[in-house]
């Protein structure tokens, strides 16, 4: 859920962009971390541990803890808690450890 009113802070209206999460179209604010956009849309499970298979969400929000690794535009292991959202991004739940795209 997004805050509309706050006693101290103003949140400048950013540009709304469309991206996909596992094929589903979602909306977020350009430049905010992908994880913030997902959270605002109610997505809390960002991946499953490749070891235990258990659900993982975000934890530190500063790119330190690796809890939030996802595949973004084909690139695996992207820390979505710090990666800025861009128009048209393809965000996917990562399967396993991920493979680097070879071009």
């Amino acid at each position, binding site marked *: 859920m*997004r805050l509309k009113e706050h006693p101290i802070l103003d949140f400048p209206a950013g540009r709304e962009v469309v991206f996909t999460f596992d094929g589903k179209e979602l909306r977020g604010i350009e430049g905010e971390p992908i994880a*913030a956009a997902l959270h605002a849309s109610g997505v809390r499970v960002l991946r499953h541990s490749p070891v235990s298979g258990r659900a993982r*969400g975000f934890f530190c929000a500063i790119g330190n803890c690796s809890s939030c690794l996802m595949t973004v535009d084909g690139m695996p292991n992207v820390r979505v808690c710090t990666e800025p959202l861009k128009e048209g991004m393809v965000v996917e739940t990562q399967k396993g450890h991920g493979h680097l795209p070879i071009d």
Partner: protein
Amino acid sequence: MRQAETTRTVNLLKEVDVAVIGAGPAGLAAALACAEAGVSTLLIDANDAPGGQLVKQTHKFFGSERQHAGTRGIQIPSLFTEKLANYPNVEIMWNTNASGFYDSGELVLEDEKRFMKILPKRMIVAAGASERFLIFRNNDLPGVYGAGAVQTLMNVYGVVPGDRVMMIGSGNIGLIVSYQLIQAGVDVAAVVEAAPCIGGYLVHAAKLRRAGVPILTSHTVLAAHGQESVTGATIAEVDKEWQPMPGTEREVECDVICLAVGLMPLVDVLWHAGCEMKYVPELGGHVPVRDENMRTSNPKVYAAGDSGGVEEASSAMVTGEIAGISAAKSLGHQAPGADARLAQLKADLAAIRSGPTGEKISAGVRCATVCGGVWE
């Protein structure tokens, strides 16, 4: 202040007098001191804006007036960047991570596209701290968030973490973030604290009690519940040895468990640089052994702010400035009046660390300071 030039060269070996890692309050103060002393300064931060932890501190700061007490944390970074902008000898690289320091004296930086090598004559590590974790059943469920993360999500991006939060930890961070959650319209189920009394300042706790939030001292969390994300938690009372007492278990309805159980200094680059490290619980973990000028056992390397021991922004600004002045001085440069300023800063630091809350920090600092206060 110049914007760093962008180039795709991989092996760019740039020489600089002082490299400052981290642009939180400590790094900003260090860079400004170097700028004033006239040495070439490179300030590096992984974020795209200055401030470190300050970017989410919406409350008015406690501490001493010289260190901007009474100002909201979010307003402090620009006080520094406005001054830094006047110095052509300062270069800032945002979105850049300092990832390694080698025996050759090279510091490796990376941004989205490149690796770069820097050859700094001195290095000041002001990388801050990271959140501590806590052991309980299902602690890996989505919805168990660090307090810093909750603050970032809510105060920087305007997204609330959930509907009902249980806060673990009643230090200043736990108390302040709880209050900020309420300001954002989120329910706070309780603040849970294992110690018999709260760790933070009474003013912050009083605001929460007025808002009707229970502060449960001598309590801990035993388990989180839920399949794919948090739907509740079990808490229990603890005895004097901090052991849960059977029969006191209680269910709490919440969709977020927020951990505010302390921070741990970020010291990776200091390990790389071979600095002598010491485990000092009062300072949050492994910290560099230092002299009173914040120099580590490696004569080229200084530490400042939470990287030298978890404390607060006021002292981070002071240790940052001390490190900056000292690093420049070791290269033969100093601004007029630098020695008097250094003495003043050391007195400020002693004042910040006086009083009952400063006792623990002071003990830690004594333990982390090299024998006799100066390196041989």
